[in-house]
């Protein structure tokens, strides 16, 4: 989901670092190195760290994600709106999918099936739509509990 936010906003990486400097998040995310270290606990990444995140670290990442989604809500809404012209919407989705694929190829382990699914044209687009929808409903402080519960869903 964090990668999707970076794909939506060209300055998403820097915005993430800037947002993590807020008092509520600065204790767990004091600088970009600590943010990167927490994100590296994702086993789908090329270089991942062992171990699990502490609850406070997970909470900080979830809050950061919800705040970033809140900031990018107008873009999320435009992508999800049915009143947008279909051709323009298709172009937006294609551009977003291309950006996300570049980020995934750069940072994720291509041997993992989850990563390969993200890079497939049709399955990847379906998954991207789910991610954008999830970000829209998790945006803002009201979405933190919803997103946290979703991240703890049972394995399918």
């Amino acid at each position, binding site marked *: 989901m964090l990668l999707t936010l970076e794909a939506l906003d060209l300055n998403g990486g820097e915005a993430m670092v800037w947002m993590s400097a807020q008092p509520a998040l600065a204790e767990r995310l004091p600088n970009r190195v600590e943010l990167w270290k927490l994100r590296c606990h994702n086993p789908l990444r090329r270089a991942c760290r062992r171990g699990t995140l502490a609850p406070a670290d997970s909470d900080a990442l979830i809050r950061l994600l919800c705040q970033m989604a809140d900031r990018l*809500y107008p873009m*999320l*809404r*435009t992508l*999800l*709106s*049915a*009143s947008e012209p279909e051709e323009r919407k298709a172009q937006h989705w294609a551009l977003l999918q291309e950006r996300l694929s570049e980020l995934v190829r750069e940072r994720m382990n291509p041997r993992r099936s989850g990563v390969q699914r993200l890079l497939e044209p049709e399955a990847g687009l379906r998954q991207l739509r*789910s991610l954008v*929808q*999830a970000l*829209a*409903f*998790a*945006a*803002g*402080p*009201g*979405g933190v*509990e*919803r*997103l*946290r*519960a*979703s991240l*703890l*869903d*049972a*394995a*399918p």
Partner: protein
Amino acid sequence: MKHTLQFDQLSCRLRVEGLPDVSAGQAADAVGIITGWTLAWVGRPELEGRREHLLALMQVVLPYARHLISAAPRPFGAADQPVAIGPGAAGLHRLELRSSQPDTPPLQVDLDAAELADLVRVLDQLRLDPRLVLPLPVPVDRPLRARELSEREPLQRRLAAPVGGAAALAVAAALALLLPPPPLTQPTNRPVPAAGAPSAGTPAAGG
């Protein structure tokens, strides 16, 4: 003393009117008693109602949004509740509003994901507004069980590991049964000599 809380999104505006509950010692700018609310949508009839209707709206829309985050949408709102929501046709979301008047048919509103997200945001803004001191309880968001998820691994893949393990155990047991049993050896009935006495097969000393 009447206050109006207003929350705006691109497709909707929620206005809640209320008063502070002075008997409970609430601040003058607080809203402790809701006297009415309206929800105005672009291109749709305006909704209005009392506190219980607003609560019913929050109690179905917010859990529905939680399920959408997990890509596992399902209907919310029992038949006896004034509000229900569920997946509609063509990727839309159908919100049904049932009047308390006996001969009034329910109002059905089809929302796209963007409009539903706007509705969720105004409801979140309302329930998290510090000026609202009236409790509006909504169901606690909880993780979904495997059965509730719509995208699960195919049954064949889920059963592959346990079935494969059971098959491997059966094959190993069958192979073990095919192995010849070890030959039985007859025990010999030779008397055990007492301590110091010569045994039957040994010649006596001096003889």
